[in-house]
Each structure stands twice: as C-alpha cells, then as structure tokens.
C-alpha cells in the first residue's frame, strides 16, 4: 500500500534519545511546592523525541492504514460514508472547543442552542417525541435506553427481567441487556431472515421488559412485520427498543416512530457522517416517545423565555451516565450535517444507500450467493459459492485478498447466523465508478480463487505485514513496551 515508502514499524520509544524534547514551556519564576513524599520515584518511560521526530513518526504510521478518505470501505453495519470537511472546520471553532462543561448556562448559550435544536430536528426526522444526546457511543445509548425501560417498570411497579433479542442482533444488544441486569432471550430468525411472529408470541410473557429490534436488520432486510411486533409487545406491556445502527436505510424515507417503537438510539458516526476516528469517538443519542421522557438522563437541555439552560431538577431521571454532557464536538459535526440537509436531501441519502447496495448485490449474486433473494435495503449479505468452498476458500481469504486490490474488506463472519458471511454496505456517498471497480475486483478474486486457491489463501501479499499470529498474541500478551 505504500510503494514509495519503506515500512518502518519502529516504536516511538525505540526512536527515543535522552535529552530530546518536542515542547518547551516558559516560566522563569516558577516555584513548585510538591512535597518530596508525594513525588513520583522514577520518571515515566515515555519517548524523548524532537517535534519533528514525533511528526514524522506519526505521519508515517498514518500511511500504514486504510481509511474512508483513501479507500473504499464497504463495512456492513458500520456505514463508512464520507466525512464532510465543513463538519471538521465548524466543530473546531474555538468558541466551541474552549467551553468548560461546567460553564454557567448564560455563558454557554451557543452550544446549548445547538443541542436543543438538534433534539428537535432528530425527533422530527425519526418521528419521536424527546431526545437525549448524552450517550457517547451506540452501546452507551443502548445502555441508557435499557435503563430507561428499567426505570419505567420500576415506576409502574412491574417486575420484568427478560429482554428478547433476535439472533441476528449486534453483540452489543445482549451485552447491554445483561449489563443492566436482564436475562437475554434469544429468538431464532426465520429462513427469510425475519423475526417469526409465532415464536415471538411464545416468548412474550409477564417477565418480558423489552424487545430489541434492529430495523432494517443486520441481514439488510426490512422487518415487514415491525408494526405487528410493536402491537403484540405493547399488548403485553413490553417496550420496543430499536437499534438505530442501520438508520441510513430509512433516513428521510421512513420515520421509525411510525412503527410504534418506544425508543431508539442514533449513531452519529454512522448515519450523521461524523468520522470513526479509528474506533471512536462517536456519539449515540437516544430518542424516546413521551411516556419515557421523564426518565431521560440528567441534566436536560431546556428552553425558557428564549434562554437555554441545563435542568438538573428531574426527580424521575435515571441519573448521570457520564461526568459531563456527551461527545459535544462530535455532535457539532452531526449538527452541521443536519443543517446541510432538508427533507428532500435526507430522502436521497436513503435512496442512494439502498440503490448502491442493490447494485452491488445484483452484480455479484451469481458468483457469491446472497442470504436473501429479495432486494436488500442499505446492505447485503453474501457468502462464498460452493465452488469456492470446495477449493477450501474461506470468507477471510477473500477479505484479505481485497486488501491487495486497495479495498477495505466488508464486514465478515457477521451476522453470526450466516455461515461465512460477507456483509457489504457501500453507503450513498460512493460513486457508481467505485462500485464498478469493486465488483470487477470481486469477480477477479473469484477467478483467482478457482484457478490458484493457494495464492488467495495466502493473501494479503502487498500489505506491510502478512497474516498475523493471533494465537501468539493471546497466549503471550505483549501489550506495552
């Protein structure tokens, strides 16, 4: 991936030379007063580098990396869309970044106004009544949502300790349920990849607190019975949580609130174009229907007499879910994205996301059989053909070979219910030309795998490293210098 650059994986600590420094301070009359017995005994083992050393070190490392800016990144369920640069610019304005989270409300009006307006816009887009943007990640939002449910049942005096999760769900769903002290009830999907209504009826009982639904689900299929699922659940007193990870398929086209769901989370780093940052920071707000509103985390941004303020006086709130308000700088990016889109533009996001996914699916389905023959929403799930499997080719091999061609691999081996899954989500920001080139490459890899399987099994061949020994890493953990 870096033909013009010699691969250099020396650690910063190995480049360290005693006496080098990247940043100096001036304080001629400094007189510190730290008692000797409170001082650290030996200096920390941090690298000693000049500023130039550090800049070159990290710039070089940035080159040994795929990213949305540099590569097509069709990771299913991750919505790796383009991250607009205006978002970066406006979220870095010093008036925003220099604001202390415990500033007085009267001095924080700009940021509070944005948070308040973002609540309104997101509720309108999704057909929900109220919002909190405290959670800083999807999973953090899920946990917040499940705590809202827990509070709801405690307020109305019902003891319910089960959460239904379909087997196609993201791993965070069951992990969240058990973190909040619930028992996870897994339900098997139908062969079409949908939640089976009859099975659901069998599992709904007086103990069922919540059902967690992903719409469209992780197979890229719209749960066409979602309204019935909501109705059955509500009849049983059960709340419906929607995992909003796949909202990119619905945005502007469908309001999830219309399904009858009670709450949902948003991933700003998916649908609302904020960058993934190599694994974070994201932002994961929660939208709710009116009845769950009193339980939202505190404080809440509210408006009175034209002024915005943090309301701490919320007796039924689930409490604080982190020290200070959410990943604000990420929310500012998402807000810029909200401003950039009106109703018409939002609908075009979903349309193009769905069009791009179906285009890739239809072009590849004769070589890589899809899980479902139906048209997909924003992503599709394929698998290696029987011919490839007979040659011993695994999904992992195809994923690694794609890297050689300059494409990031799709999500692989997820959803867990699909054997050897290859989950492709192109997103709306990719062009037909890029998709054509990806399709062509997949065909080429298919041919390579049939004619020269060993070559594909040993991929990648052009990355800075070959396949890595993960067993060694886990058996003898070396996690620091």
């Amino acid at each position, binding site marked *: 991936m870096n033909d013009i650059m010699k691969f250099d*994986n020396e*650690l910063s*600590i190995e480049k360290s030379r005693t006496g080098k420094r*990247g940043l100096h*301070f001036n*304080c001629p009359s400094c007189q510190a007063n*730290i*008692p000797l017995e*409170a001082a*650290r005994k030996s*200096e920390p083992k941090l690298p000693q580098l000049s500023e130039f050393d*550090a*800049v070159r070190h990290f710039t070089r*490392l940035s080159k*040994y*990396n*795929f*990213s*949305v*800016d*540099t590569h097509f990144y069709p990771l299913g369920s991750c919505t790796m869309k383009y991250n607009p640069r205006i978002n970066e*610019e406006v979220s870095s*304005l010093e*008036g925003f970044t220099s604001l202390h*989270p*415990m*500033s007085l409300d009267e001095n*924080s009006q700009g*940021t509070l106004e944005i948070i308040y307006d973002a609540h309104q816009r997101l509720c309108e887009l999704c057909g929900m009544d109220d919002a909190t943007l405290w959670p800083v990640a*999807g999973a953090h939002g899920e946990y917040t949502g499940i705590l809202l449910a827990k509070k709801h049942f405690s307020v109305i005096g019902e003891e319910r300790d089960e959460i239904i999760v379909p087997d196609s769900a*993201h791993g965070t769903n069951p992990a969240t349920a058990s*973190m909040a002290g619930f028992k996870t009830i897994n339900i098997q999907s139908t062969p079409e990849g949908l939640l089976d209504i009859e099975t659901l009826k069998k599992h709904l009982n007086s103990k069922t607190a919540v059902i967690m639904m992903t719409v469209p689900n992780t197979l890229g299929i*719209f749960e*066409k019975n979602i309204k019935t699922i909501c109705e059955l659940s509500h009849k049983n007193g059960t709340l419906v949580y929607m995992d909003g990870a796949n909202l990119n398929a619905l945005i502007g086209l469908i309001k999830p609130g*219309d*399904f009858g769901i009670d709450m949902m989370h948003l991933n700003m*780093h998916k649908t609302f174009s904020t960058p993934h940052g*190599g*694994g*974070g*920071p994201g932002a994961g707000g929660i939208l709710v229907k009116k009845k769950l509103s009193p339980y939202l985390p505190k404080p809440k941004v509210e408006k009175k007499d034209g002024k915005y303020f943090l309301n701490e006086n919320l007796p039924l709130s689930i*409490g604080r879910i*982190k*020290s*200070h308000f959410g*990943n604000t700088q990420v929310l500012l990016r998402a807000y810029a994205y909200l*401003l950039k*889109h009106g109703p018409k533009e939002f609908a075009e996001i979903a349309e193009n996301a769905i069009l*791009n996914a179906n285009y890739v699916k239809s072009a590849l389905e004769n070589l890589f059989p899809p899980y479902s023959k139906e048209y997909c929403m924003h992503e599709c799930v394929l698998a290696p053909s029987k011919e490839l499997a007979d040659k011993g080719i695994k999904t992992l091999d195809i994923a690694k070979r794609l*890297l050689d061609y300059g494409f*990031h691999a799709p999500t692989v081996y997820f959803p867990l219910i699909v054997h050897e899954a290859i989950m492709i989500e192109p997103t709306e920001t990719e062009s037909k030309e890029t998709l054509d080139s990806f399709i062509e490459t997949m065909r080429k890899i298919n041919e390579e795998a049939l004619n020269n399987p060993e070559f594909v099994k040993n991929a990648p061949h052009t990355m800075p490293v*070959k396949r*890595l020994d*993960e067993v060694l*890493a886990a058996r003898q*953990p*070396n*996690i*620091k*210098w």
Partner: protein
Amino acid sequence: MYISNTDQEKKEMLEKIGVKKFEDLISSVPKEFLNPKINLPAALSEIEISKKMRELSEKNKRLKSFVGAGVYDRYTPAAMKAILSRGEFLTAYTPYQPEASQGLLQTIYEYQSSMCALYDMDCSNASMYDGSTSFAEAVKACLRISGKNKILYSAAINPRYIETAKTYLANDPKYIFEEIPLSGGLTDEKYLAEKIDDSTACFAAANPNYFGLIENIEILNKTAKSKNILTICCADPFSLGALKTPGECGFDFAVGEGQSLGLPMSYGGPYLGIFTCRKEHIRQMPGRICGMTKDKDGKRGFVLTLQAREQHIRRDKAASNICSNQALCALGATIYCALLGPKGLKEACMINNSLAVKAAKELTSIKDVKLKYKAPFFNEFVLELPMKASELRKKVSEMFSIDPGLDLSHMGKDFENSLMVCLTETKNESDIFELKKSIEACL
C-alpha cells in the same frame, strides 16, 4: 449533499438491477410508512453553514476561566492538532483488518504503553468513554472479581464519578456505596480501616482529590490491602508527570480522565477514559486491547487481542458492552506524551503547581479570603469566601469576563462559600493579578 451518483448513473444502475424505478427496490416496506411528511427547514449551503456555526460559536462567551474540577484548560500542541486532523487516522474504522491497519494498531500499542508508564501499571486497554465511565467499569470489575457487594469510596472523589458508577450498576439496591469521610480535606484512613468488612469488594480514592489536594495514596492502599480488598485509584494522568503513581503504591486498578493530556474541553467531550490494571486482572478488563505479535514471516506486527472478553464474541457474557471507544482521543494523548516526554511533562506539572501556589498566596491576601484546607495541593485549591461562591462567580463573570472558579455548593451546606480555583499552563502571573483584582472588586 454528499451523493456521488448522477441521475443518468442512477438510471443505469436501476436498469442493471432489473427494476423500473427506485420504489420497486423497497416493495417489502409497507406503504403506510413511506414518504412521511418531514417538517424541517430547507438545506443550507456550505457557506451558510460556516456563517451560522460561527455565529453560534460566538454566542458562547469566551471568559478567562479558572474552573477545573476534573476538566482542565490545557494547551493543545500544534503538532498534535495537525496529526489528529489527518484523514488516514480521522476517517479509519476500528482496526479489525490488522494488515490494513498497522499504523493505527501501533499507535494503540504506544498509547497503552504510555498509560502504563504514567500510572506504573501492567496493563491498559485501548480507551473508554471518559474518566467517570472508566471508574464505573473498574468498580464493576471489582464486584465481578470479589463476588462481594460493598463499595467504599473516599468522600473526595469527583461526585460525578460516583453518580456514574451508580447508574452503571443500574441503581441496583443490592450494591452498597459507602463514603469514607475526610479530615482536613483528605481521606481519613482510620475510618477506612473501621469500615471494611466481609462484604466489602473494594475501596476507591482519587489523587489529586476532587478538592485538588494531594492524598497519601500509599497509606490508603496499604490500609485497604491489609484487609484484603481490591483498590481503585482515580488519578489525573497529567499530574503523574510529578506525583506518586497508583502502581508504585500497589493499587489493583487505576483510572483517569485523559482530557488532561492536551485535549480540548469542548463542553463535555470527546474525552478519554483511561483504564489500567495489574496483570492478574487483565481478563476482567473491558474494551479493546492491542497486542504485539508476528506475521507469517516472523515480522513484528500488531493485532487486537484477548477479544474473548468482548461483546462481539461473548454477547451477553461479555465484560462490558463497549464497542466504539475514544480511539482518536487516545491517539491525541499518545502524541501529547511523545511531544512532552518525561521531562516536559514534569516541567508542565511544576508550572501548574507553582502557578496555583502563587495564586493561592495572592488570593488569600484578600481580606476575609482563606484557604479551606491546609494540605498541599496540585493545581487547584478551595477558597473560603466571605460570601456565597455562586454569587461571586456570577458577578465576576458578568463584570470582568473572568470565570473565577467553580462554586462548590453542590458538595453540601459546608460549601456554600467555597470556590475552587484552578491554574494551568495556559495562565500566567498577570492572569493571577487580574483574577485577584476582579474578586476583590466583587466581594
């Protein structure tokens, strides 16, 4: 809008798929849900967004701020900003394909190493959301390891950390939180010794504590360890350039708010939750961990490892539900550590401390203004005023465009007149005199 396909291309694509119009692709969606009315303003152009956001940012008042309390006004080195804005880091995903993510993985390894070096601990994960959620996860780890249900904590831990931990335990009454009282603003180890019983899972302290005071964490850990309970230390990573480390005192878990390592305050985030522990607890660590290994040719490489603790493998049996973390912030902290090095960080600590010492001296020379506590402090201290701290704060803010510090009335009745003042390297002596004058004028 950021869509690449032209109308002509869309037409061609629909043709290739074999449908006449887009609607045919979503025939599985019940009609009643499609194309709802959305009542939103029309889209703005990039120029309009730029202007609007600038106007909004100016609605935040830019005060000279002396507020700290766990979030600090730090200088962000220019080189750090430049590297963090590189698209190769900014727009990458979690490094699940290690061959195509060696750069990012190596920075995570360097981050873990830097945090272990600062805290003197054996293991660090790849980051959590913030200090409070790291703390909550450490408490949960202690409950899992010990199988017990009581958490003892110093009354001088950031109260927001305790609130977050309680929320993380779903406010379940089976877990008992008990506060260890203070004497002179410091955690009293005699009370600690008395409070530990058979149901105690862990004890948690902070250094510097919430009031900026330097605790004797060595004695606190020793007292807890003499009764065989687990221990957690919340420590400001910046202060560890100069202060005694949780590791050398023997703590099991050490956590902290990494915002202190050069990240902007940005009204709450994104911050950086630092989570470290001793070797024997590694399998109870939440979140991602990067490890060094070899490729097929024996060349050094990095991968995410020990993933059997995580939600995408273990689902409802996972140590935590965390997926997205704060990777870019962790990278920022790594760059900050590399730019300052051990000497730079120590120097920065000394500047913070000496400015705070100077400010305390100046401010207590004002009539009827005293230090609330006698113990040595790091870079913030609590003043006892002859008036309500909240009133003084409001007055000084309005009249002088200075935020003089945090009023501590949220800590209870004894704190109505308590103002906590914080100094960092972004301030200098003339700022101290300005602060003094403005407080004097408002008392």
